[in-house]
């Protein structure tokens, strides 16, 4: 049964209204340019709102020696040299301007004593670098962008689920989806589409991600023929809540360690001194997460399988001012007063470094007219994302994607064509779960996929486990063909879950295939059967793409840095840091 479909026509359609999508909307919007933002939730609720610690930018407000070169150095080193150097270079150079721009739009960051933007130390950043507002920086960022964007002519379509990218030949032509409220379809014809749809942390059982992080954007791009890169790189944040069960995975900001918190095992030992004597608790996330995992495996875990985090020595007044949400979160949800006692933390799936391969300058994907920015894109973070780099990533590349999409749209002479048969077929596909009898429960499939991914492609991986995981994903994929739902089309979460599961199965397969191919350990990707980083693997990225119904994998060379950037890594010291004159200072 086909229905008359609501049709809109825009120059630029942006999917996603987190930091990247909103920043893209602001730069795409110009008089005479028709811009629409489609978002799966209400405006201002996207996952960006959960970012806590801050936005990294070499403003040098506290440490004058900081510069884009040092930020670039820290980013590339933590990415274990498989990110795109040009993406990182643009990022480090432009991040300060983007932060100052936010201040000009009304953001109120915490201040230094001389009235500038305050900057906080964070894991693996050489200098104090994160602009922040207490422990709710993401809220500040999204609210600033949201209120800026609604002052423009941008049209917002809230609680709209996008299900398919439509093509005209080899270029993008529009987006199809439905309103969650009514279940009715709508077609957005577009000259350019910006994907700003975030990551896919919901693939794992223990995650800090909100329900939205199901990877629909990456899966849609894959279906449309775009390449996905670095899919094996999934970040486990070292510190998520552990107990009680309902809160397992909720993020505990790295700011706790940034502000002086220390990690202890069940024997009271500050074990990070063993794993990274130089950077200690502020080592990169992959190192700290693995250290906690190893301590638990060695029998030195806390009662519920984590590590202790202790910040009581900083005093209640300091904690309440710097970490108000953490205090409230533990008191309300776990009956723990973090100003008085240490608390349990354990790794939680937090971020996906991989995603749609995007050009450093324009965020263009391998599909014409399709752009990707923010977490859904791949290129900046390589094998491990630095804390604080995500928020500035959204701003730098959100802006670039919005501009490039507008320019592409303005360069087209006519609106690309839409294939009516494709629109019809998509409606049938999306409605199919209503007419499957005795089908699969999408919630069950999701729970089983989460179990498979956590067991077989989690923090520790090996060949046998990945192979078994792939077989299970294939089996779940087969079962997902008969996914079913009941009820009406009006605001029906069971129905929505049918597509979320399919997206996640595609990405789960991509993660496992890429993880099998990377026969080494690098950054977040830890292969217990290949424990070392190899030079050979350091020169390639793994890329998956769709060939008919099949997922294909290939390698792409990591772009080579020009000599002047390469030289930054030759002293073995971050730019701006003087030659060492003794033992590293004690933090406590």
């Amino acid at each position: 049964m086909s229905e008359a479909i609501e049709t809109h026509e825009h120059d630029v359609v942006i999917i996603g209204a987190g930091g990247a999508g909103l920043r893209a909307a602001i730069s795409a919007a110009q008089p005479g340019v028709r811009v629409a933002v489609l978002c799966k939730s209400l405006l201002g609720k996207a996952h960006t709102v959960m970012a806590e610690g801050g936005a990294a930018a070499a403003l040098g407000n506290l440490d004058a020696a900081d510069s884009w070169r040092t930020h670039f150095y820290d980013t590339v080193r933590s990415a274990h040299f498989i990110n795109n150097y040009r993406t990182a270079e643009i990022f480090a150079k432009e991040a300060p301007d983007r932060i100052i721009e936010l201040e000009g739009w009304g953001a109120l960051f915490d201040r230094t004593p001389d009235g500038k933007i305050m900057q906080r130390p964070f894991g693996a950043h050489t200098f104090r670098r994160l602009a922040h507002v207490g422990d709710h920086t993401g809220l500040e960022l999204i609210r600033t962008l949201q209120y800026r964007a609604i002052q423009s002519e941008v049209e917002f379509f809230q609680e709209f689920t996008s299900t398919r990218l439509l093509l005209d030949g080899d270029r993008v032509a529009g987006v199809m989806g439905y309103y969650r409220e009514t279940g009715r379809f709508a077609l957005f014809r577009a000259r350019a589409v910006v994907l700003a749809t975030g990551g896919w942390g919901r693939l794992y059982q223990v995650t800090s991600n909100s329900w939205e992080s199901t990877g629909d954007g990456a899966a849609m791009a894959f279906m449309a023929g775009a390449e996905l890169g670095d899919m094996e790189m999934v970040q486990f944040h070292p510190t998520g809540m552990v107990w009680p069960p309902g809160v397992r995975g909720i993020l505990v900001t790295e700011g706790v360690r940034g502000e002086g918190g220390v990690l202890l095992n069940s024997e009271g030992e500050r074990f990070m001194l063993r794993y990274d004597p130089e950077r200690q608790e502020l080592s990169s996330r992959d190192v700290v997460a693995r250290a906690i995992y190893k301590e638990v495996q060695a029998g030195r875990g806390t009662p519920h399988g984590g590590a202790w985090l202790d910040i009581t020595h900083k005093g209640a007044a300091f904690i309440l001012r710097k970490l108000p949400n953490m205090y409230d979160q533990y008191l309300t949800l776990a009956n723990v007063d973090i100003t008085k006692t240490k608390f349990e933390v354990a790794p939680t799936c937090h971020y996906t470094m991989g995603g749609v391969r995007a050009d450093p300058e324009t965020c263009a994907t391998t599909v014409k007219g399709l752009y990707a920015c923010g977490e859904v894109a791949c290129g900046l973070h390589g094998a491990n994302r630095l804390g604080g780099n995500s928020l500035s990533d959204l701003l730098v590349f959100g802006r670039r994607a919005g501009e490039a999409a507008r320019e592409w749209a303005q360069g087209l002479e006519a609106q690309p064509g839409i294939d009516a048969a494709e629109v019809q077929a998509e409606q049938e596909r999306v409605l199919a779960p209503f007419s499957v009898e005795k089908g699969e429960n999408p919630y069950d499939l999701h729970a089983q996929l989460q179990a498979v991914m956590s067991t077989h492609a989690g923090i520790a991986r090996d060949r046998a486990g990945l192979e078994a995981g792939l077989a299970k994903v294939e089996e779940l994929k087969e079962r997902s063909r008969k996914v079913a739902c009941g009820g009406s089309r009006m605001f029906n979460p069971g129905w929505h879950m049918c597509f979320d599961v399919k997206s996640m199965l595609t990405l789960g397969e991509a993660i496992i295939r890429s993880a099998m191919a990377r026969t080494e350990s690098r950054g977040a990707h830890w292969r217990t059967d290949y424990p070392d980083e190899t030079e050979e693997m350091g020169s390639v990225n793994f890329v998956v793409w769709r060939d008919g119904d099949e997922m294909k994998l290939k390698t792409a060379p990591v772009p080579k840095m020009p000599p002047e950037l390469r030289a930054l890594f030759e002293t073995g010291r971050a730019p701006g840091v003087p030659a060492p004159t003794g033992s590293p200072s004690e933090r406590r």
Partner: protein
Amino acid sequence: MKDTITLSVFRGDHTGGEERSYDVPVTEGMVVLDAVHYIQQHLAPDLAVRWNCKAARCGSCSAEINGRPRLMCKTRLDVLGEGVIHVRPMKSFPVIRDLVTDVSWNYRVARQIPGFTPAHPAPFVMHQVDVERSQEFRKCIECFLCQNVCHVLRDHDLKSRYVGPRFMIKIAELEMHPMDTVDRIDFTQKDAGVGYCNVTKCCQEVCPEHIHITDNAIIPMKERVADEKYDPVRMLVRAIRGR
């Protein structure tokens, strides 16, 4: 605590509906949203509920739990006692389905507030003490629980006259921003309808971010309006000048 608990959840839409009971197994530390998720996964997959972060950051899962407006993700079952837990949608907004309400009015109001307009381009030199008041208001997660309990909106449905507590703190935040140059006093009085608030402070009582909505935003804004509009000397000057 008991092994299972009964949730009585509103099922229906704008044409009406009724509460239906669901038995949910209890685990330690469980919150109301966990129980609602259990119902979705095992008993009623089409139960409509808005939620995003499950960490009290996004303000999506607002509902009335045993008659009190709360975030479902932050309300532990063990603080609600032993009896049946009643979960209903926010009363001040039209029901779409089950626990989901139509809050679009709030987004329309947001567009009407004159935006931040600085004296000169950033960067700004601003001191912590000068930004702290606005920072308090910027902690707002837009859960709209304050709008839900506001008598003007809830009992009198005067949405066309008063913007409600959420947007009073938005106006106050902009007015108290050290670098902002726009005068919103006239807007606050006429368009925003600050005079409708009768200072019962219900809004600040339900705020999950503990923002002092009435004390720190609405009362000062009332005072600014009074200073500007009802100061006898200024009133006399206006009467003489004819504006």
